C-alpha cells in the first residue's frame, strides 16, 4: 500500500475540522469553508448524494437547523486517522432535535445513541469527497433515521431550488 504525505494544507484542514466538530458545530460559514466547490457527499442510510457546494450548503443548513447542542448533548470524537489524502473519523452525537425534520417532534438523544463514521478525501486543503455512515443503537433511532434523512434531502432540495442553484 502506498504511503502518502500529510501536506500542511491537509493537516490544517483536519485541525480546523476537528475543532469545529467539537467546539463550534453550528457554525455554517466556518464549516462551508472546508469544502471544495465540487464536493461530492454521500449519506448513509438512504445513499442520498449531494453534489457541489450549493447542494452541500443546503444540506448542512437544514441539518444544523434541526438540532442544537448543549451540556451532555454534544459531539464526541472517538477515533480518527489519516493517510494524508484520506481521513476517517468516528464520533457519537448527542443533540436536541428542534423538530425541523422530525415532524415537529422535539426530543433529546444522548451521546452514544447516534454513531457516525465518515470517510473523507482531501485535496489541497479542502474536502472533495465525503461518505457518511450514520447508525443508531436504539431500535427507534434506526427506524426513524431513513425518514429523517429523506426529509432533510427534501428540505435541502427545496432550499436549493429556492436559490435557483439546483443541479
Amino acid at each position: 500500500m502506498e504511503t502518502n504525505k500529510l501536506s500542511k494544507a491537509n493537516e490544517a484542514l483536519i485541525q480546523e475540522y476537528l475543532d469545529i466538530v467539537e467546539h463550534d458545530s453550528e457554525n455554517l460559514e466556518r464549516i462551508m469553508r472546508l469544502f471544495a466547490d465540487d464536493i461530492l457527499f454521500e449519506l448513509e442510510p438512504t445513499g442520498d448524494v449531494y453534489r457541489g457546494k450549493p447542494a452541500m450548503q443546503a444540506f448542512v443548513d437544514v441539518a444544523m437547523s434541526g438540532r442544537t447542542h448543549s451540556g451532555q448533548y454534544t459531539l464526541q470524537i472517538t477515533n480518527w486517522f489519516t493517510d494524508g489524502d484520506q481521513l476517517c473519523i468516528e464520533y457519537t452525537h448527542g443533540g436536541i432535535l428542534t423538530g425541523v425534520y422530525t415532524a415537529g417532534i422535539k426530543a433529546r438523544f444522548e451521546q452514544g445513541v447516534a454513531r457516525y463514521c465518515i470517510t473523507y478525501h482531501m485535496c489541497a486543503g479542502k474536502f472533495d469527497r465525503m461518505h457518511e455512515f450514520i447508525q443508531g443503537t436504539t431500535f427507534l433511532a434506526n427506524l426513524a433515521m431513513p425518514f429523517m434523512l429523506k426529509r432533510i434531502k427534501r428540505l435541502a432540495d427545496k432550499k436549493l431550488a429556492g436559490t435557483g442553484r439546483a443541479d
Partner: protein
Amino acid sequence: MQKNFEIQADEAVIEELLDLMTNDSENLERTLKLLTDDCVWVMEPSGTEYHGIAQIKTFAGIAMKLRGHDEGEHRIEILSCFSTGDNFCIEYSHGMVSTDAVTGAITSGLKGGIPTGILRYCMVYHTRDGKIDRVHEYINSSSWWLSLLLPIGMAYLHRVTIKRMAKGIVN
C-alpha cells in the same frame, strides 16, 4: 493535535483481509486467524458488541452461513481502503444471496439476493502485533426497506448468537 499519522497498519493483515473479503469470504477459520484472542467486534446498527474470539466465532459463523456470493451481481466490491498507524478503514459494497443453511432461523426460510451496491459497509479496524484487536462495523443500505429491516435482522442475528452461546455451541 494528536498525531494519528505515523506508520501504516500491518500491510500483511490488510492484504490478507482484502483477499479474504473478495475471494474467500465464507472462510471462517481464515478470518479468525487474523483476530487477537481478545478482539472486540462492534456491530452497527444496534451497537452490539462481541468480546473475544469465541463470541466472534459464533456470531460470524452464523452470519457467514446465512449468505453466499457469486461472481456476478452478488459479490463484495471494495470501494476504498487506507491505513495509518495501527488503524485501517475499508469501505465496500456487499452483494449476496441468502441461504437456508441455518434452517431458515433468521431468514425464516426465505431466499433472496441483494445486488452489489445496495448494502454499504464501512469497517474500521485497529491492529496490535500483526493482528486485528478491534473492529467497528457500520452497515447501511441505500434501500428504504432494507434500512428499516436491517436493525431487525441484526437484533435477530444477535438473539440467535446468544442462544447458541448459552447452549455452548461456539459455531
